[in-house]
């Protein structure tokens, strides 16, 4: 088939095929990532269960996590809305896109 002077029906066919290939590739990748996530998360509870045996730490209140942080940011006595505002202000002040910054935790400092 002449792909340089491609005919219109052939172009339509390749367009559909190309879109299908992109979907096929990304759907397969999604399945791989889901399996990967399942395997990694199966180990996580085991590790968490093993921890009290060795250390037996004092019960700690699980801090609520801010929305949209992929679970990395821990909030202590901070409202998610305030946390989002703080992150936006920090990003703006540093002149850095928010996705290039990593916030570990936000804690309200109370006056004693």
């Amino acid at each position, binding site marked *: 088939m002449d792909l340089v002077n*491609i005919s219109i029906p052939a172009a339509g066919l*390749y367009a559909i095929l190309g*879109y299908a*290939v992109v979907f096929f590739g*990304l759907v397969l990748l999604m399945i791989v*990532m889901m399996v990967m996530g399942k395997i990694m998360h199966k180990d996580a509870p085991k590790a968490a269960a093993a921890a009290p045996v060795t250390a037996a730490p004092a019960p700690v209140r699980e801090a609520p996590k801010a929305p949209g*942080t*992929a*679970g990395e940011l821990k909030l202590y006595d901070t409202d998610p809305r305030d946390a989002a505002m703080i992150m936006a202000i920090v990003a703006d002040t540093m002149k850095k896109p928010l*996705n290039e910054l990593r916030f570990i935790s936000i804690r309200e400092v109370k006056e004693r």
Partner: protein
Amino acid sequence: MQIMDVLAKLGGESGFALFFMQGGWKNLVMIIIAFVLLYLGIVKKFEPLLLVGIAFGCLLTNLSYFLGHGENALYHPEIWANFLDPQNTAAYHSYGYIMKNAGLLDFFYIGVKAGIYPSLIFMGVGAMTDFGPLLARPKSLLLGAAAQLGVFVAFFGAVLLGFTGPQAASIGIIGGADGPTAIFLTTKLAPELLGPIAIAAYSYMALIPMIQPPIMKALTNDKMRVVKMEQAREVSKTEKIVFPMVVATFVILLLPSTAPLIGCLMLGNLFKECGVTERLSDTVQNALMNIVTIFLATSVGATMVADNFLKLDTIKIVVLGLIAFAISTVGGLLGGIVMYKTSGGEINPLIGSAGVSAVPMAARVSQDVGRKYNKNNYLLMHAMGPNVAGVIGSAIAAGFLLSVFG
């Protein structure tokens, strides 16, 4: 008398005189276009890191290269035409021939022609990207796939308008909203269109905050726009380290032609995540990225030679590029709407438009539009998932087109 002859010779050879030679007016038009692009980059801040370099490269080329008077030129389109001409045995695919005849910008352009700069830019993008939101919600990949619709619709449209298959593929990839990918593919398939395609790709990326919101508003209703999404699951460090290895292995095996882009993207990401190569990650994100951007932008700008650029085809490319961007946004939003329906209203379809790549601009647009309808809605990190999925999606689309037309 001799002095007068010398002065007359200098005057006759000057660029000012060449404006009045055959086709010289075209250079003047291109110089004005370069000034307009500089204005857009510097004053309007349209992708300034790239547009300033592209515009200045265009200026330098059109100040030094006039049709039939290329002896002092910084860029020579004819030597690159010979380089691609199989009939020209001395020049065909001979970098020795290029080195012998090159001007400064021809040397810069070797990095574009060999696909080095786009791949290195992808390495920098990988080192700057957090794939955490995508790992937390792998279904985002579907939105990244859906948002490649514009690539293939624009490809088809370009064929309808009379472009050849390889040219149409290069025009279509503008819809991937990914500058390095567009440059990479165009250099391989239709180098004669590199200037207009790069300009269209980067200009529309800068215009995303204007192009996307009306489409987002038209395709969604108030109920959809106010959806607050649940927090994504926690992503472990190990997952983030394994991710680039898995993606590189999987995608390159699936489509080997994506190897330069996906390979570099994932290598950059591994530098960032593995925790033992901070210095390399820092260099790739900053120094290397900046150096490559300078060479890439000026050499792409250099290809905007008057005779190549001032054609009806350029206008067609600009229009098709806009259509590609708009349709990719539609595709992403339709994907978002399907996910909204199938998830029982848990997914906000506005994040679908971020699947067009253009990291992180498109994700910011999702955030801004979402907050307009619900002040307490923070979609940014949810939109980053489809956004980075779009980078992988556009690389796969480019790989497919390269496999077929390369």
